């Protein structure tokens, strides 16, 4: 592993928006235990389809925690469509880069956000209930 830059370490030390939400409008989870990274993101969506509040829980390495934290900061206040445009690479860029080996395996936070948005939309359409959605793993 190469070492993390200061910005990454700042997000690792003081992660923004850690926690869960009892009344989330959408929950997304990606990763799996065999890879060593699991990220769960909770969103609260307002009437204009903006992300009014966002929280995360992550099991994983420094990069996993920092990207989770970063993505919550980036997403807050964005419309869902804006949030869907953001990808994992954008998150890494906002963190001023990640060590090369981390670019693939622990840089999944945008995916978790997208999963949360998908979960929200599916619920709105009434396709699924929340407890199922939370189990929907990608990766």
């Amino acid at each position: 592993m190469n070492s993390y830059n200061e910005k990454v370490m700042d997000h690792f030390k003081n992660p923004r928006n850690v926690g869960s939400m009892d009344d989330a409008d959408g929950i997304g989870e990606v990763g799996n235990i065999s890879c060593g990274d699991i990220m769960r993101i909770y969103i609260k969506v307002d009437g204009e389809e903006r992300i009014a509040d966002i929280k995360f829980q992550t099991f994983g390495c420094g990069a996993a925690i920092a990207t989770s934290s970063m993505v919550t900061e980036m997403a807050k206040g964005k419309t869902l469509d804006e949030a869907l445009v953001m990808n994992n690479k954008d998150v890494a860029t906002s963190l001023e880069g990640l060590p090369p080996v981390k670019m693939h395996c622990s840089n999944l936070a945008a995916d978790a956000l997208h999963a949360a948005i998908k979960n929200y939309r599916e619920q709105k359409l009434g396709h699924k209930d929340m407890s199922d959605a939370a189990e929907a793993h990608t990766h």
Partner: protein
Amino acid sequence: MRRVYLDHAATTPVHPEVIAAMLPHFHNSFGNPSSIHSFGRESRQAVDEAREKVAKILGATAREIVFTSGGTEADNLAIQGVALAKKGQGRHIITSQIEHHAVLDACKYLETQGFAVTYLPVNAEGQVQIADVLAAIRPDTILITIMHANNETGALQPIREIGRLAKEHKITFHTDAVQAVGSIPVNVDDLGVDLLSLSAHKFYGPKGIGVLYIRSGTKLKPLYHGGGQERKLRPGTENHVGVIGLAKALELATTEMESKQAKVRALRDKLMGGLLAIPEVKLNGHPEERLPGNVNVSIRYVEGESLILSLDMQGVAVSSGSACTSGSLDPSHVLLAMGLSHGEAHGSLRLTLGQDNTEEDVDYVLGILPPIVLRLRQMSPLYHKR
């Protein structure tokens, strides 16, 4: 900030007396040992004395000691060297699933060269079973290579018993004793090994120097070729400063070893006890048959790299078998071979104590770790799901 180094299995600081022994040879007695003038003869004498010293400590003769650039080279020279020399007699090798990558990857390479390799499993405590070794022996087995002590769990392997078996079956036996030498007594006859690897930087010597012990009569071919040094088995201008440092470090480590290691073990037991008192923490490896300085635990619901980083922010250096610390996707092959789940393996923490650690070091770690674990657990979706 207090700095506490608990990663002695990764490497150790060079002992001040070792530095003092090496220093004059950088600039004053610097000759090439192969030169016949006085500058060369001084270096040759220093190398000869170091070789005698190492041989005596291991219970070997000077001719059986070949200096290498470290443990990785010693392992490869042993394994590839025997394979090259004996491929006419057979092409089967026995090793274990928990070897260091230097051994595993040398074996994997040989598989691409037409050799067959049996990777023995281990039990839940991380120990090779002698019955498995026996069952794996074939008429074409030319080499058994099983490590003396595991670098992750410190688990000691039944080397004496394997040595006896190997002798009975006339199979060359190598042990990677890189983690054992300097921490526990190692005598080549007592162990019954034909080949043994060690590396100075694991016992307060310099990096870049190691030894392959080669029992006289053992067939082995060199991996590279040149000026004929080290009986042609490992040519190249001798790193005489490294050799001197290695011998001094080995001498220091093995002098009053028992009392020194008893101190390390006592600290280790205190640390182990404190760690196991944290809820949902379990010990990896054998509770007693392990290196005196080694603790390896799995801390549920948290991931190893995050633990390392959090401890590092408070000055404590440890390591983990988490995949995230190695750049691969799979966590430690050693922990998986012991039957740990991926989650347990990702959440493993290795703390290895050394001779300079103190009771205060242990207290400090036991003081800061529980809140770190709690914080990471609270961040973890697994902890909330449980």
